[in-house]
């Protein structure tokens, strides 16, 4: 009882290591990221232009659609491709992403084996342009090559693309985690949608800790693959790509999402100007003190 009370009293002191939303917004986002530059990272098409210019590997663009007239010819344009990914340039939380993995007589198939006719794909692209995934503001649709997932921990059999989120301050990686989609997350790599967050030791690339729906886990709930103590392949390359990607933007505090393609190695999926804080739970490590130290170093 007394012990609990003492623990309670020490909470504010211990909380100094942890980055909350208030401190993130004021110390990091407000301080390092100018609002006028947000669209450079928020818009996937514009972000990709910057990354390409900086020589950072990104998924190959197959097509872009920015008007309904173009969208009407989408099926025709995509005819040549058996597999591809359709994304809204300004979607959030993985919404509006359509992954097609193979072709049949009537159209394309997704992971679940459902048929998407050329008409349905055209409709989806029109919806993106109409702003269904961007709060009603008109948007652009981006069609990219489908990446081939390099073997990572426990990811072989799963739908959805795992990625590595690296938090960077002025291009310096601060904290990272592997995000593994689960059946519960419906293939999405967002932690609040039910993906697994796996903490990574930045120096070694070895996984240290994993959380699933707010609880620590040792093994993947769908595949039973061990999650902790695994060495991630090509770790120095992942960090290098993330860091170069971060420096491509005029934004100082970013969350860079990197996927590991079997053929091309690490490729950058997107950059987030206001990366989530759940990464601290995945690493069991607070970001505030780390960010403070990095900020001091970058000035010194």
């Amino acid at each position: 009882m007394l012990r609990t009370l003492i623990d309670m009293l020490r909470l504010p002191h211990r909380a100094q290591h942890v980055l909350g939303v208030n401190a993130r917004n004021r110390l990091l986002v407000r301080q390092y990221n100018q609002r006028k530059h947000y669209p450079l990272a928020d818009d996937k098409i514009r972000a990709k232009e910057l990354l390409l210019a900086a020589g950072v590997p990104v998924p190959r663009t197959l097509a872009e659609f920015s008007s309904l007239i173009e969208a009407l010819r989408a099926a025709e344009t995509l005819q040549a491709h058996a597999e591809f990914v359709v994304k809204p340039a300004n979607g959030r939380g993985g919404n509006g992403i359509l992954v097609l993995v193979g072709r049949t007589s009537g159209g394309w198939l997704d992971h679940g084996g459902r048929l998407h006719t050329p008409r349905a794909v055209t409709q989806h692209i029109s919806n993106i342009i109409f702003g269904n995934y961007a709060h009603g503001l008109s948007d652009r649709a981006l069609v990219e090559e489908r990446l081939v997932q390099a073997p990572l921990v426990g990811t072989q059999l799963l739908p959805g693309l795992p990625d590595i989120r690296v938090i960077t301050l002025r291009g310096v990686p601060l904290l990272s985690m592997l995000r593994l989609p689960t059946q519960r997350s419906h293939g999405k790599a967002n932690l609040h949608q039910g993906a697994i967050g796996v903490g990574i030791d930045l120096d070694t690339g070895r996984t240290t800790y994993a959380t699933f729906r707010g609880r620590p886990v040792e093994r993947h709930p769908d595949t039973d693959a061990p999650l902790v103590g695994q060495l991630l392949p090509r770790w120095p390359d992942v960090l290098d790509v993330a860091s170069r990607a971060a420096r491509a933007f005029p934004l100082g505090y970013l969350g860079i999402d990197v996927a590991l393609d079997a053929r091309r190695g690490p490729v950058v999926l997107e950059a987030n100007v206001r990366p989530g804080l759940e990464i601290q739970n995945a690493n069991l490590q607070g970001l505030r003190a780390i960010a403070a130290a990095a900020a001091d170093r970058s000035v010194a």
Partner: protein
Amino acid sequence: MGKGGGMTADKSIASRVRALDVLAVLLFLVFPLGLVFHKIVRVGYDIQSLLPVETYKVSLSMTCTGHGDSLWVRTYLPQQDARVMLSAEKVASDLPGHLERFSDDNRIGEWHGGTIDGARSIRVEYTAYGQHVRYDLDAGIPVPGPPPERRDPFLAPTAAIQVDDADIGALAEKLAPTGSSLDAGLRAMHDYCQKLGYVDFKGETDALTALRLGEASCNGKSRLFVALARHQGLPARLVGGLILEPGVKRTSHQWAEVRVGPHWIPYCPTNGHVARIPANYLPLYHGDQVLFAHSTDINFRYKFAIERGSAIRPETMAKAGADPLNLLSIWTTFARAGIPLELLKVVLMIPLGALVIVILRNVIGLETFGTFLPALIAVASRDTGLGWGLVSFVALILLVFLVRLVIARFQLLHLPHMAILLTFVIIFILLIAVLGVRMGSLDLAKVSLFPLAIMAITTERFSIMVEEEGARRTIGVALMTVFSISACYFVMNALTFQILFMSFPELLLVVIFLDLWLGRWMGLRVLEYWRFRKLLAAH
């Protein structure tokens, strides 16, 4: 940051704002608080008079069921006088005819309709604020004694007030002998009637029966008192009305008044009030009347629902009208321009509502639909009361959820989808209003006044969130929104705050100061302590 290592960003913020800090403290804290101090100490604002007074909101609902004949209903309505202030009176009914007339001292409301079949309802609402009044009678005034003739109706006998009865006459002379002190005589008459046994008898008791039985309900005691007073030449009358207390009641109360000079002095032999009347006595009629009358052959029921509330002291408002430093003084100007005072009160509270939202979100960590939406919904709930405001909010959310389930099948584009939801919201509000009028519930009918723009925004936020973050999380946010609406409602509707801000509008600067302070606060939000509990335990 902590003591260990300051973040450079932290330091640069600090040095940049240090000079501004001093300015902010002076402008937003020292200046307004100084002005408040000045008003209280130098100008002599009376804090006591700024505190709100107790009011009662009375809702009288009457239902009558006709059987194809024409019907009418009549009752007495309260009137404002020096002691009782009335406001916000509303009358609604689904009977076609309504008229108001004055008869003697009384205000009568009448409703009628031809060939009515089935139930009809009538509703009367008003807010009353009364004061406790005590009269000091000069001990030198004598009891005049039985008059030679009783042409004054307030001295005359009636069937139920048997002034001429010998027993009553003897008792009156014994209690208040002719020529003795009127004050003491009336007190003796009152005490006699009060000491009679009390029976909770619904019907009418005449004066003589009360005397013979030695027990009576309020009307019997009051009639006996009136008969005794009249016998000794003191003009007296019955008063019928309500004792205001929270709850639902189906009984009215009767007391008596005796005319001394130009004044009617109240006596209540049931509850022992001698030459005084409590604040919560609300007179509805004077004279030996029946509160409700209606055509025969109908089913008639009524009830009074009474709620306690609070209001600004009318004296305070009058006094403040002359003070140029006081926003209350603007009220009169506003009123002349036809801008309701309520509007000013609400507008003044919006910054405070916004501050509540800042605290709920940035300090506690609640999430809500839209940023300041809960504050606006709280404002919108002002007319309907928080209960109905929340009910309609939740009902609306459910409606949008169900409609979405159906129209999602059409796979519509975003904007047409939203337009359809909005149309359903309007249909829903119309239905509620119609239902409210049918049920005779003005509160429910007022839901239609719930500003439509706010509803539309709510709908849109809700809709987007269900799509992006799933139903479960959305329900959680909806609950937090309901909580935030309630918190805003209580703060923004607290009369103490309203009066404080109207008397000291400079406090808005203090609100800005608090916003500034919270805007720089970077601690963990309360809910983040839970979110990062494992992390906190690990350190």
